[in-house]
Structure formats: structure tokens, C-alpha cells
């Protein structure tokens, strides 16, 4: 089994699943998807993108020059889409099991500050 997917990689894959994005777009999308929690720096972002491209889960999908600035777009591959759905299912099952544990456990006495 390959290394467990990190939360940041998962969010990047999710951002690319919505639509092909360029680097800055991925950062903004990850910020929105994590509800303001995860702000990727450029170094971290490119480390993740390089790893995803090397693993065949993402690929460069075209370049556009906008206002003198080069934007290279990235998109999800089929393998990336599969990995994303698998990881989402894993997280969903985990959350379900956790919810079962929390509702079944005897609650601590209320009123203890």
C-alpha cells in the first residue's frame, strides 16, 4: 500500500477535481475547501504538485499568458480521480465509525466545568 495521502495532497486533488487550475487558483481553492484553514505556500504547493504529477494523478494541461504572466494549468487524471474517490470513501467510513463510537460511549457527567 503506498504512503497514506496527506490532507494537503487530498485538498489539492479535490481542488483539481472541480476544474483545471493554475497554481494560484489551487491555493485559493484549497483555502475555500478547507474553510479558511489550510493556506498553502508556494514551496509546499509545488512539492505536492510535483509528487502528484510523478505519481500520474495530475498533469499539466496547458499554458496561458495573462497580463504578461505565465499561467500553467493542471488537471486531474483518471488515476487521480480514482485515488480521490477512494480516499473520500475511506474518510467517510472513518467518520461514520467515529460517530458510532461517540454516540455509543457513556457520556461524561454534565455540569463539570
Amino acid at each position, binding site marked *: 500500500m503506498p504512503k497514506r495521502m496527506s490532507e494537503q495532497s487530498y485538498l489539492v486533488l479535490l481542488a483539481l477535481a472541480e476544474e483545471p487550475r493554475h*497554481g494560484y487558483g489551487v491555493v485559493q481553492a484549497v483555502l475555500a475547501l478547507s474553510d479558511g484553514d489550510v493556506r498553502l505556500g508556494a514551496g509546499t504547493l509545488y512539492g505536492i504538485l510535483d509528487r502528484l504529477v510523478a505519481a500520474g494523478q495530475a498533469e499539466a494541461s496547458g499554458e496561458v499568458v495573462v497580463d504578461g504572466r505565465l499561467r500553467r494549468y493542471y488537471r486531474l487524471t483518471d488515476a487521480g480521480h480514482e485515488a480521490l474517490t477512494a480516499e473520500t470513501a475511506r474518510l467517510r467510513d472513518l467518520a461514520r465509525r467515529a460517530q458510532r463510537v461517540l454516540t455509543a460511549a457513556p457520556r461524561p457527567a454534565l455540569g463539570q466545568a
Partner: protein
Amino acid sequence: MSARRPVPGAAAGHDHAVPTASPGPTGEPLPSFERSVGRWLHAYPRRWRRTRAVEVTAVLADLAGPTARHLDARTALGLVIAGLVTRWREHPPPRAYLTYRLAGRHPGPAWDGWLRDDVDGRLYPVRLALTEGLVAAVAYPSVERLYLAAGSPGAGTTGPATAAGRTSRPAPAEASEDRA
């Protein structure tokens, strides 16, 4: 590096605290900013810079805002760490590296890009001199001792012969030029 909290406003009142879906600020970044980015990007390997520097500079300019004059310390640190990690990932393993450095054996097609950067690098003559010097310092006295013990008159010719055997360097495959 990523922060677990929204970052307060960057240079000159540009507010990044609110997540926005709009594209980054438009317009050219300041030349001093681009120079600053270029300096920090040296943490990445040369071949990586050649293909990605323009794109990364654009993203950094978007993140920093139109008035940033140089890269801030936190982003720079993140870049350096990521660059060193990239260098580490694309470096051949210890045995392949040693057989290449000391015996001139090609480390393998997977490391073609690294090999090309090594041979084309500015410090390549220094690396060569160091390894030649190391090999000579270790091997020459031992070989000389053997020859002297055997009573051979040709002890002085082993030095140039060893150096000549090492001057041919393995050439990386041409295909490595096109690899992203």
C-alpha cells in the same frame, strides 16, 4: 509552508485574510521582486528552474501582491526547504553516487537529469578535482609502495595512467533534454 490560520494582510495593506475565488492581482511584479525570487529559487536544481521558474515566479507574485518589493521570510524559507527536498528526491542513492563519483560509472537512466546538471555545473571542475585528489591521495601511495616492494622501475608512470583512465565522463542520454 502552510499556516493553520488565515494570514494577516501582506505588504502595503493588501488583505489576504478573506478567501477569494478571483484570479490574483494583475500587472507586472516589481523587478526587485523577480530578482529576489530568482535568488531564492537557487535552492531548486538547475533543470527544475529551467522549466518551472517562470510559472513559480508568477504564482509567488500573485500570492505576494502587486506592491511586494521582495519575497517575505516565511515564503522564502518554505521555498528553500521545498527546493532542498526536490534536490534530495532527484539525487541518486549512495551506492550509485559513489560508483559514479569515484569510478565514473553511469548511475542509471533514472538519474540522467541529475547527471547532466552535475556535468554542466559551474562547480563540476571543483568536484572533479576533489575526487581525483582524493583517489590520488589514497591510491597513489599504496600503488607506489607495491611497485617499490616489487622492485619495479616504472613506479612514476602509474599517476598519469590513472588520471587518463578517469578523464572520460559518462554522457547522459540525449532524451533527458526533453524530459520535463
